[in-house]
């Protein structure tokens, strides 16, 4: 039942390529998030605590970000991201049969949900920035660095929220603020790599370094995302 609804909503992403209306993205994105919420409530586990829900929430969040995305970039920019969403959704439907739908978290609090959502916002900003980088290389328009900067600031802020929320979760679960487990170390590595972005200025070489930091952050965050729960 839920799968059919999710397939219909994902189909809306494909329709966007034909009709080019942002309303389709908004409906599909919000619909996915609402469906996932209903699914978690009905299953009786904590919201977005398995990889399937997490992934559908991410694609929903990305599409909403696209609708309200205000930048100097051309409109084609939305197609790249939408392409990624469609590709990701198709991949999800292929693996959905083999995946566990239960809640798999060891944390059980509202702070954990904030932590997950903050991470997904951070991750979606990095995905948008990756598309931004492709655009910079294709159009060779270095002025797009401005929109790269503003998007990176969003991801850096939410990375800090992730760290603070992780500390709160850890305190309520173990009595320590930081327990140096692998997940926390990778979050710290990610924060340190991202913080290096703000040392760089506006020369061409430094912008190239910024691009390297974004790509590196993206790959680290993919690794963290797969081990987030």
């Amino acid at each position, binding site marked *: 039942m839920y799968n059919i609804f999710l397939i219909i909503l994902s189909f809306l992403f494909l329709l966007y390529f034909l009709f080019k209306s942002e309303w389709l993205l908004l409906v599909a994105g919000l619909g996915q998030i609402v469906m996932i919420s209903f699914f978690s409530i009905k299953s009786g*586990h904590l919201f977005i605590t398995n990889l399937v829900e997490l992934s559908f929430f991410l694609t929903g969040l990305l599409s909403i970000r696209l609708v309200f995305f205000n930048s100097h970039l051309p409109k084609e920019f939305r197609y790249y991201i939408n392409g990624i969403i469609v590709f990701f959704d198709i991949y999800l439907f292929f693996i959905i049969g083999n995946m*566990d739908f*239960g*809640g*798999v*978290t*060891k*944390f*059980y*609090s509202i702070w954990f949900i904030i932590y997950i959502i903050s991470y997904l916002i951070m991750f979606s900003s990095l995905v948008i920035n990756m598309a931004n980088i492709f655009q910079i290389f294709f159009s060779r328009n270095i002025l797009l660095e401005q929109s790269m*900067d503003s998007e990176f*600031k969003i991801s*850096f*802020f939410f990375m*800090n*929220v992730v760290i*603070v929320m992780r*500390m*709160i979760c850890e*305190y*309520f*679960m*173990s*009595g320590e*603020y*930081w327990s*140096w487990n*692998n997940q926390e*170390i*990778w979050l*710290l*590595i990610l924060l*340190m*790599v991202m*913080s*290096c972005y*703000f*040392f760089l*200025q506006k020369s061409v070489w430094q912008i190239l370094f910024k691009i390297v930091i974004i790509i590196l952050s993206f790959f680290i965050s993919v690794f963290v995302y797969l081990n987030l729960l």
Partner: protein
Amino acid sequence: MYRKVSLFLLKVFIFLEVIFLFFSTLVPQNLNQELYYKMFSSNIVKYIFLFQLNNYYSSKINFVLLGVIIFLLILSGLKYFKKLSFFLFFMIFFFIVIIIFFDRFYNRRVLINVVEGNSINFSKIINRTKKIDDCYLKFLKFEIKSSEGYKEGIAFFQKGKDTLILSSKKSISIDGYRLYQKEFKKLEIFRIAIDSNDFLCFGDTLYQFGKLRILVNKYINTDKKLLATINNKEIELPLNTDISVDDSRIKFIGYEGEKYLLQIKIVQERFLDFLFILGYLYLFLLLFLLTKGTEARNV
């Protein structure tokens, strides 16, 4: 000039810390030295011990690197301390570090074991200075909820008329102290007497009573007898029969069945509210600095 040098050093030290952290995730922590030689080649093990990667998170290298990074961060940002927002941001960051340090070293942390059906005097454990009424927590029962391959232990406690639920996924707070479920074991419980003194013993646990070292191996229900290892000798203890071992008289009084032994961690919650407020202020000021634009990018 000093700012350029400190910024350069800051980048170098962040790079070093990231490299060390990365390698530390590849090395299992706090194992016996021999196990590292089995896992890695001797050349790699040499470097693991040289850089303390076997216990990196509490090593001097980690603390020095983190300390230097924080110091250089403050040094490179000194120029911006004239601006109130930057000054507040660094001060909040500094206070958060100080409070976490105080919490780690000055807030009480106690580990206690409690058996199903028994009570603990909470006031005595937390050692209150004020004279107040005793607060007893009775460990009523323990349940294991298995779902999706994960086991969740749920302990039910009675405090006065209230029933408190302490789960492995959820801690509880009592009078400024937070209780966490650390681990649980299901053990067989036996009552034995040594020279007319009664003791409760758990199965598979080694006990030292004076000169006697006792390990209960097995209870045979059909014969009503206990198999135990006493001072490295295997001895059978029939029910209510005195047995003499190394000048001591041991008697197996009864089998009390299987019960859960729960380990609870109790942590004092001092400064927690203050830390929450500082955490929110930190995020708020970071948002302010990032949206403000030009100054933030140069720090």
